[in-house]
């Protein structure tokens, strides 16, 4: 479609198998700067594998992934780690917060790993927890948080370093509908404010409806752009 932003992440012809089981069989997509895209599809269609390839967590067997013109899939691990620390924010279904740390320290951690002093990191982390409506939970550990609160902390942690790309794998998969709505509304609002591009992998159409567009995966193949030239007969 002509009004899409300039692509920031570009995946082409991705093929990936887990052992003998094919997960991706020629998948591709463009994620534009500031764009929110939902990747949907049935279980086993390759959604999470696609996200892992985009984030550099997995290497495709064939095809390419570029970020801002730089090939991600062939990068050495050191540069990949740097990208994941500074340019990408990744969120998983179960938050994957560190259980021994408070919500505040979980969010401050990526900043401290990047060299920010503890006090300054905690100050910024507190701001981000407020933005996601989790300020009151700053002193709690993950085990003391509800599912929705934990996901909002995980989102704050993913966004605290100011990434240009947020990759979220079923971020509301374990939440009820109202908690899911709060998490998605917070993610979309913050992404609009910061200009971050967001890719959300979900099996839930109501979650996908928060995105600007949907990319559908079926048997490891993407079916993009089905809305182009669509006619609706009332």
């Amino acid at each position: 479609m002509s009004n899409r932003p300039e692509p920031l992440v570009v995946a082409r012809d991705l093929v990936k198998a887990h052992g003998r089981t094919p997960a991706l069989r020629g998948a591709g997509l463009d994620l534009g700067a500031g764009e929110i895209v939902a990747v949907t599809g049935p279980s086993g269609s390759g959604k999470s594998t696609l996200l892992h390839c985009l984030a550099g967590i997995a290497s495709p067997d064939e095809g390419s992934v570029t970020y801002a013109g730089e090939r991600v899939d062939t990068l050495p691990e050191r540069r990949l780690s740097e990208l994941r620390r500074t340019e990408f924010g990744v969120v998983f279904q179960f938050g994957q917060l560190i259980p021994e740390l408070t919500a505040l320290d979980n969010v401050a951690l990526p900043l401290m790993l990047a060299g920010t002093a503890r006090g300054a990191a905690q100050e910024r982390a507190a701001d981000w927890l407020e933005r996601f409506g989790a300020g009151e939970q700053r002193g709690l550990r993950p085990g003391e948080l509800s599912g929705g609160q934990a996901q909002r902390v995980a989102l704050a942690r993913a966004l605290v370093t100011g990434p240009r790309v947020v990759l979220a794998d079923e971020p509301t998969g374990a939440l009820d509908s109202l908690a899911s709505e709060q998490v998605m509304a917070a993610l979309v609002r913050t992404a609009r404010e910061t200009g971050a591009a967001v890719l959300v992998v979900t099996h839930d159409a109501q979650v996908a409806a928060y995105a600007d567009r949907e990319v559908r995966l079926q048997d490891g193949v993407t079916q993009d752009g089905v809305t182009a030239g669509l006619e609706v007969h009332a």
Partner: protein
Amino acid sequence: MQYILISMSTRHILLGLLAKGPSHGYDLKRRHDEHFPQARPLAYGQVYTTLQRLVRDGLAEVAGTDADGGPERTLYRLTEDGAREATDWAGQVTPPAPYVTNEIFAKVVVAILTDGDPASHLLAQRAAHMERMRELTTLKTAPGTELATVLAADYALNHLDADLRWMTTTQARLTTLTAVTVEADRA
């Protein structure tokens, strides 16, 4: 503008609105549209016709007139029977989808009967549904959105979501059916 709720019992909704106290037709129409912001606005003619029927059936009665600086308007109020009818109706369990008359379902059946391409149709319909769900999500998450609008959008989103799940299952069944047919042709 596409409305969310298509058909409802105007008769019982007017009884419900009158439960808050006497009101005239113009005010009832305005309050109806406030409470059902995504429904098709009620026509004045329908309000007055329904009020006359409620009076005829003993469920409402004329409570006087109200000029309020403008033209004189007839005020209506609930009778005891009307109040009971509104309560009874609101408490009745609605028959769960007794008839499958959905247009998408009908089109898929006709596409199969005419050797059409139901799978492509379902894909295009899915895109249309997602587009509408995006509009509704934007509507309900906009700052300051009234509760009535949020509830109406939730209702519509859940029904569209149910359609989508049916379409996904149907697409999978069609794929299986095609595979079985191809296999049978080969044998």
